[in-house]
């Protein structure tokens, strides 16, 4: 069996204030798999994402694309892990969209022609061709979210990690993002409360609560289990509750 894209063994993290945010998280994600990471507020979802990217000094073992995370491999890990943060205003920090998408490939040290090609290709992939010269401040929320995705796609990561990608999007912008994610073949970790999104995009779901994995299985089964979801502060996805899925 091929090596998993992402592997977590007994990952623990405690905040300075003393609260234990991650209490022994263990799971692995196979190459090409799309996994939804769900759970109530404060379950440790975003903390886990930061730990995987090496921003928080967590205990336990984290392997990303064959690199065991430690101080000397953190740059390799981040190169293979594309994180789209929740607020696109944090993600888009350059004066122009084009420069922002080019940022990742340029810091990877790619040749200028390759950087340009990847920038154009990524903007095209998210439906923002020709947005190079626009200021991120002047984009709509949906456009910002897709531009943020493009900044990461340009680095061709082995794993995409998205934190609440549909937060603040109207139904049309949300639909468009879902269609976009469905067409990507990258390994994916989607964090969030939007269970309909996870049902649409991910084959597998992991339920995190109080810093531990509470359930792990096929998304279509787990997200139809009203008792399980309710006992962890979640509700059936709307499409399930209304009998559409």
């Amino acid at each position: 069996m091929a090596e998993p894209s992402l592997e977590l063994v007994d990952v623990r993290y405690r905040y300075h204030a003393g609260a234990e945010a991650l209490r022994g998280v263990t799971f692995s994600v196979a190459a090409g798999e799309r996994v939804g990471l769900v759970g109530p507020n404060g379950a440790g979802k975003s903390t886990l994402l930061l730990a995987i990217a090496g921003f928080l000094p967590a205990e336990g073992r984290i392997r990303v694309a064959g690199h065991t995370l430690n101080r000397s491999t953190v740059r390799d890990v981040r190169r293979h892990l594309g994180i789209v943060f929740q607020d696109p205003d944090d993600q888009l920090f350059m004066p122009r969209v084009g420069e922002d998408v080019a940022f990742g490939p340029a810091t990877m040290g790619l040749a200028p022609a390759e950087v340009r090609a990847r920038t154009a290709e990524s903007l095209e992939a998210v439906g923002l061709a020709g947005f190079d010269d626009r200021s991120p401040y002047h984009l709509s929320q949906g456009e910002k979210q897709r531009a943020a995705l493009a900044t990461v796609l340009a680095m061709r990561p082995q794993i995409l990690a998205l934190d609440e990608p549909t937060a603040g999007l109207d139904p049309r912008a949300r639909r468009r993002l879902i269609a976009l994610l469905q067409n990507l073949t990258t390994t994916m970790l989607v964090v969030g409360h939007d269970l309909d999104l996870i049902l649409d995009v991910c084959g597998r779901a992991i339920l995190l609560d109080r810093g531990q994995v509470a359930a792990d299985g096929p998304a279509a089964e787990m997200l139809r289990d009203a008792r399980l979801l309710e006992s962890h502060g979640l509700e059936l996805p709307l499409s399930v509750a209304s009998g559409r899925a």
Partner: protein
Amino acid sequence: MHHVMLDHFAGRNTPVHRLDPAAKTVAAIVFILATVLVQRDHLLPFTIVAAALAAYYVVGKVPPLYAAKRLLIVSPFVLAVVVLFPFFEPGHRLWAVHVGPWVLSVSDAGLARAAHLGSKFVLCALTALGLLATTPFHGVLAGMARLRVPRVFVVQLAFLYRYLWVLLDELMRMRRARAARDGGLGPWSLRFRSHAGVVGVLFLRTYDRAERIYWAMAARGFDGRLPAPPTQRMTSKDAVFLCGVAALAAATLTLDRLAYG
């Protein structure tokens, strides 16, 4: 919420918009230097700078009202000083105002000095505004980078430009939320305290955002060096423009020296 950006008219397509941003940045610096170096309290040398700026604004189709409004925003700091000059500069007394036991006198030398400094300020500000009104901000930044302005400085400006409006939006939302509850009324002391609260929360949010931005940058491989912005090549038109600017600056200073001697 969308603010009128500094470079609101920078997307137009006129001969001055098409000039190389680096050339325009140099030209603005030369003009500002020439204006500042004028020594004599005589307005004649300034007319050359003023006429050149007027021509630039006309060719660049910059609305005068836009420039005037922005000029007003930056003027209070300087005007406060300029207004005091007529009273404190020694010279021939023109008028005297009696305020109780004190006599406030306006001197001719003081008035001339105030007019001189006021003109310098207006011309320098209009030069900078002219640059920003005809050049996208990222162009100015790229120009500065090519002129070997330290990278740290250029990057600071880039972040300022990117996040100033985001911050102002946050401030506006918080003030609105407060106004929705107190209706702008309430005792003065309470309003003062809530102002302090808004400032404190804004500081914390800014701090958090800075950390999240750093994460987003580090996640994409940031190691302290920003990639160089794309560059543009100077053309013969830019060279002609720069020569013209240099000639006008020289004419301004020569006129000043002649009047001085």
